[in-house]
């Protein structure tokens, strides 16, 4: 066994690169290994209490939340995608890309905005009271957003774009030929949707729903502000309030089990379903023109999620930020926080891209067969909720810091303190692990466009492995690197749960600032930080809209 492994290594193209990729995979899974180790230590007398009082309700809440968000996001995402892909109505071209905009609003900011908007003294209830001539704030029995229903509603309306994107692509390209065939056999729009389009789009939709649910599972702000105690909240409060890392690790493992279950269900829902290449179709079929009431209904169906998921919160934040700016000016803290955010996100983006590049390069040159499984393991970070990742990193990092400190005291008599945890390196590591998949996937796609002949040419001219990478691949990969950099950077900026737990003591970023203001209930004070995060979040969406534009133009020969 050992000799065959060694031989495989020796025969591989560039064993050094393969070793790097394997090392990356080991680092990515190390937090999970640490969780298992900490959890098995036992949390002493805390476990019976967790098992009896915390876990059952937190697990039930989490599952109810996932089911609710999954259903709502699917209905909104598939419904709007179907309209935009197959019907023509006023505003269709605008909705086609605008329906992606809620992606720019992190869940904690959405919850933060709506808590203030639907507050008894907020704009909605105030104007309703004014309309009906009521003076008592309790006179209106308004929809309580601080509830499970409220969380599902808000998360569904902000996470549906994951489903929308997947379903739309499937309706436009993959199943378009089959949809035309169905219509030509006499199927009306609804029959086509339910008997052909949905079964064919199912694998894509399932992927979209899974991504949306991973986000819901990762959320810490919305659920906490709205008072729903999920597993994420249970992990955070067990660590923060009970100072029990083993207890937090135990709940984290439970949560990883739910993530695993989610992926198993995804696999099951996609079984035997690979419908790509039903027919070659470069242009989507002509949309059906809607008129009158139907056109208005289609407009309203698309406008509603866009308004709830983006326009209302964005307008509210912009208004609050301008008012705050006009009255009190920008607090000096915000500069400091913006700098911290840019610094951590920038360093993490650089690290993520470099590691992603090494992994993608290994995948291209590796002949040993180890690189492919190792790169898949290195990509699992996106599925680990931020809180779980942070708990898994806390202990190994502290152990590392303490041993370095001890070593330095012993040898040089200088204490180094918390060299990794205290410097923000822990945060950078967490971001890198969590967003590495985006960089690997992006660069792999970039590499796919570079012919291998170019590598052979460079090598035959005497260029070495690293030289080929630096002089040939890097310039050619620039668009892929740029795209991946923006995606990773913005996600680092938005990241809240891991940032809350791993930031150096006393350091605030834009995201933790918004969180802190929301916890205090001083919403207007966080509006500038919140709008900065949202504005950054708009960049990749504009990019995405531009990339997918060719598929958007309809192909009516009458137009």
């Amino acid at each position: 066994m050992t000799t065959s492994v060694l031989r495989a290594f020796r025969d591989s193209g560039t064993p050094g690169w393969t070793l790097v990729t394997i090392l990356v995979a080991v680092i990515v899974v190390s937090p999970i290994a640490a969780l298992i180790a900490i959890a098995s230590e036992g949390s002493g007398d805390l476990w019976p209490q967790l098992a009896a009082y915390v876990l059952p309700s937190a697990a039930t809440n989490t599952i109810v939340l996932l089911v609710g968000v999954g259903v709502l996001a699917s209905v909104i995402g598939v419904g709007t995608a179907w309209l935009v892909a197959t019907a023509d109505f006023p505003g269709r071209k605008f909705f086609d890309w605008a329906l992606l905009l809620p992606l720019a609003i992190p869940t904690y900011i959405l919850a933060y905005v709506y808590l203030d908007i639907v507050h008894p003294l907020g704009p909605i209830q105030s104007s309703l009271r004014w309309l009906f001539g009521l003076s008592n704030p309790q006179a209106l029995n308004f929809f309580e957003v601080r509830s499970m229903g409220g969380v599902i509603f808000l998360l569904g309306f902000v996470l549906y774009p994951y489903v929308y994107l997947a379903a739309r692509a499937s309706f436009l390209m993959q199943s378009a030929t089959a949809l035309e065939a169905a219509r030509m056999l006499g199927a009306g729009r609804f029959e086509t949707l339910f008997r052909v389009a949905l079964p064919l789009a199912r694998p894509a939709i399932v992927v979209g729903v899974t991504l949306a649910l991973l986000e819901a599972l990762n959320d810490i702000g919305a659920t906490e502000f709205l008072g729903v105690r999920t597993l994420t909240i249970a992990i955070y409060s067990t660590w923060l309030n009970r100072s029990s890392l083993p207890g937090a690790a135990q709940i984290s493992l439970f949560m990883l089990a739910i993530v695993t279950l989610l992926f198993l269900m995804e696999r099951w829902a996609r079984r035997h379903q690979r419908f790509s290449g039903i027919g070659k179709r470069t242009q989507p079929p002509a949309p059906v023109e809607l008129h009158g009431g139907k056109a208005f209904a289609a407009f309203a169906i698309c406008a509603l999620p866009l308004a709830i998921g983006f326009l209302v919160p964005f307008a509210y934040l912009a208004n609050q930020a301008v008012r705050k700016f006009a009255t009190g000016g920008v607090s000096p803290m915000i500069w400091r926080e913006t700098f911290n955010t840019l610094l951590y996100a920038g360093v993490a983006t650089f690290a993520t891209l470099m590691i992603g590049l090494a992994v993608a390069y290994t995948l291209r040159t590796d002949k040993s067969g180890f690189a492919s499984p190792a790169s898949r393991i290195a990509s699992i970070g996106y599925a680990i909720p931020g809180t779980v990742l942070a708990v898994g990193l806390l202990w190994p990092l502290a152990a590392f810091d303490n041993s370095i400190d001890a070593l330095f005291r012993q040898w040089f008599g200088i204490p180094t303190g918390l060299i990794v945890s205290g410097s923000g390196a822990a945060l950078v590591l967490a971001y890198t692990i969590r967003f590495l998949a985006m960089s690997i996937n992006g660069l792999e796609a970039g590499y796919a466009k570079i012919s291998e002949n170019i590598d052979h040419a460079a090598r035959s001219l005497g260029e070495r492995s690293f030289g080929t990478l630096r002089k040939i691949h890097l310039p050619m990969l620039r668009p892929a690197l740029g795209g991946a950099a923006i995606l990773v950077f913005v996600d680092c900026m938005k990241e809240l749960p891991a940032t809350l737990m791993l930031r150096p003591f006393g350091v605030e970023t834009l995201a933790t600032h918004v969180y802190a203001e929301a916890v205090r209930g001083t919403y207007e004070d966080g509006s500038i930080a919140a709008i900065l995060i949202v504005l950054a979040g708009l960049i990749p969406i504009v990019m995405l809209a531009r990339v997918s534009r060719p598929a958007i133009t309809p192909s009516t020969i009458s137009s």
Partner: protein
Amino acid sequence: MFEVSIQAPLGEFNLDASFRSESMVTALSGPSGSGKSSIVAAIGGLVKPKRGKIAVNGHTLFDSDARLAVPPHKRGMRIVFQESRLFPHFTVAQNLMFGRWLAGKKRDAQFDEVVALLGIEPLLSRRPRKLSGGERQRVAIGRALLADPQALLLDEPLASLDAARKEEIIPYLTRLVLSAKIPVLYVSHANDEIERLAQTVVKIDGGRVTEIKKH
């Protein structure tokens, strides 16, 4: 049977085609990109011409002056596409039954008749991806025939097949065309055997009708 007079922008030139055929089998012939497939798509309702009129079997399907455009699924025009376009999530039998299923009909004598005509009995329980190109095309023709067609539009059904597969399917097409009880529009870019069976041949080039031949 077919009465077409349409204008529509088409790539770099304009489609401006008018023809009328009272034959049971009409062939539409011309080089690639001449506008044949666009005419088929317009008859089926998949694209909407700018101006003109389309009538099949005496039923007006499109008339820009009267602002009339029957929705595609209500026209009864059954197109057989070049690349068969079978539903991958259904078996062959389910694909064949699709039209009857929508109409609330059961498997009947006509089903068996079409299956026998096309020789696809042994394929019924298979999935489309397990079929050869020729088999797929036969199933696609069967699916169209079983969906109560007002007319059958065959859009270069042989174009995506290699020579051997063509040989395999030609006898079935010949049988179908010779026994046609509904109007058939057969599109081809080569002067092929089936085209020679048509009573009327409409030649298209550059989006215009250049010749109408009657046999």
